[in-house]
């Protein structure tokens, strides 16, 4: 009776019976309701990794994490990121900058952008942004003629909605409002992909990571299952944290991720 439903065809279907309305997959069942309201799984400027099972064909548009009773104090950068089991970036939300993270809230952010690691103009109106290694080839995500939105560059002229003029494996170019020779410093901007290219369709069922980064005076608490210390002795991690990179506006490629006892509850939609 019940055991037949443990079979392979149903594995990715079963966790969905208690999904919140609108959610497509969650980091773990809501029936694990004795969650801990904890700040210990999160440190300022460190990306927190929360594993989530996503089945083939699932189309991810946005993500949500549950914050607990401690709000963020003076946030300056915070965002979500979706990565694959190898920690490779798939999508990132736009940096939310100083937007409040209030207690007992569940912000939903669109996973519609990709991060950058550099940007420059060389005696020209053309901006060239450098994009870190992504799960999908940049040339499959961005094409000449696409309309993309660049946000939060610290040179104002770089920001706005632009038409892409060139794409390589690692760069995106577009014409900005003025000619100059300059280059960006961190925090680097995100690039919202063109309409129709923002969502991610899961190619193969398996583990992914739903990540959170907050730079703040005091980090917020998340609602987490805290019993993962032992399980995290085995790769891939159920919950992790990149305590090597000191992050601001964007996710970086190749993070060094250590175990984290706290697995935050969240979902994709």
């Amino acid at each position, binding site marked *: 009776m019940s055991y037949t439903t443990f079979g392979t065809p149903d594995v990715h279907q079963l966790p969905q*019976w208690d999904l*919140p309305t609108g959610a497509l997959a969650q980091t773990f069942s*809501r029936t694990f309701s*004795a969650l801990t309201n904890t700040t210990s799984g999160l440190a300022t400027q460190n990306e927190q990794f929360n*594993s989530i099972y996503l089945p083939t064909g699932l189309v991810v548009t946005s993500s949500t994490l549950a914050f607990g009773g401690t709000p963020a104090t003076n946030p300056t950068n915070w965002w979500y990121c979706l990565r694959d089991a190898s920690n490779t970036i798939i999508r990132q939300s736009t940096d939310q900058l100083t937007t409040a993270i209030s207690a007992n809230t569940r912000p939903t952010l669109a996973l519609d952008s990709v991060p950058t690691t550099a940007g420059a103009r060389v005696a020209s109106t053309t901006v060239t942004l450098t994009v870190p290694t992504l799960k999908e080839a940049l040339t499959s995500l961005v094409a000449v003629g696409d309309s993309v939105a660049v946000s939060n560059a610290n040179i104002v002229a770089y920001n706005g909605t632009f038409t892409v003029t060139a794409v390589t494996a690692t760069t995106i170019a577009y014409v900005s409002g003025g000619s100059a020779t300059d280059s960006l410093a961190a925090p680097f901007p995100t690039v919202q992909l063109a309409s129709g290219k923002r969502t991610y369709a899961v190619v193969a069922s398996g583990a992914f990571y739903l990540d959170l980064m907050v730079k703040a005076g005091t980090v917020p608490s998340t609602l987490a299952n805290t019993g993962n210390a032992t399980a995290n002795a085995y790769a891939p991690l159920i919950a992790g944290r990149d305590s090597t990179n000191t992050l601001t506006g964007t996710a970086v490629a190749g993070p060094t991720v250590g175990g984290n006892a706290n697995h935050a509850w969240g979902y994709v939609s």
Partner: protein
Amino acid sequence: MSYLTGLATDIGGLANALGVPSNAHYAAYSKDRISSQALTAPVKGQAIFTAIYIPSGQVVTNICWLAGSTGLTTSGTAPHFWMALYNSSVGVLGQSTDVTNATWSAGAIKSSALSAAFTTTYSGLYYCSLMVDSGSTGTQPTLSGISAISAGVGSPTNMTPLLCARDSTNTGLTDTAAPTATLTANTNYAYCYVN
């Protein structure tokens, strides 16, 4: 990992050798998560609800709840006691016979048979419901389960569909379950199962 996570996620809703009592088919969640025997006693005349996963085609004969450290003592006028099964839209599917002299000891499992066994028609979320009115001078039982769900309104259990709830609209219930309940989130997540 993900595969195991998927399985672990399901244990709360599925029968398995470790997670549910030996006579249970499906439980609201794994019994090893029961952390309290002192969940707040149900309000007289108000039904409480716990979400449970049941697959399509499952015959539900009985609903079972686990008392906390205080048992039920009926006394005075108009005691009532029944259990009911609801669908995910919180429409009633079946109810046990109302009992006016029910007994339920502290820490004991109380099983009540639906008046007619119900065969589920879809796989997914159902609700087990319990209504206890111990009478005008009776003692309401506490329940066992998960208490003090963290962060109140921020708790994932408080998102729709609710996992633990009460019907605060249909108050003053006596011998009959409300055809349709209006759920309000509860902070106590009482344990139950069906067989």
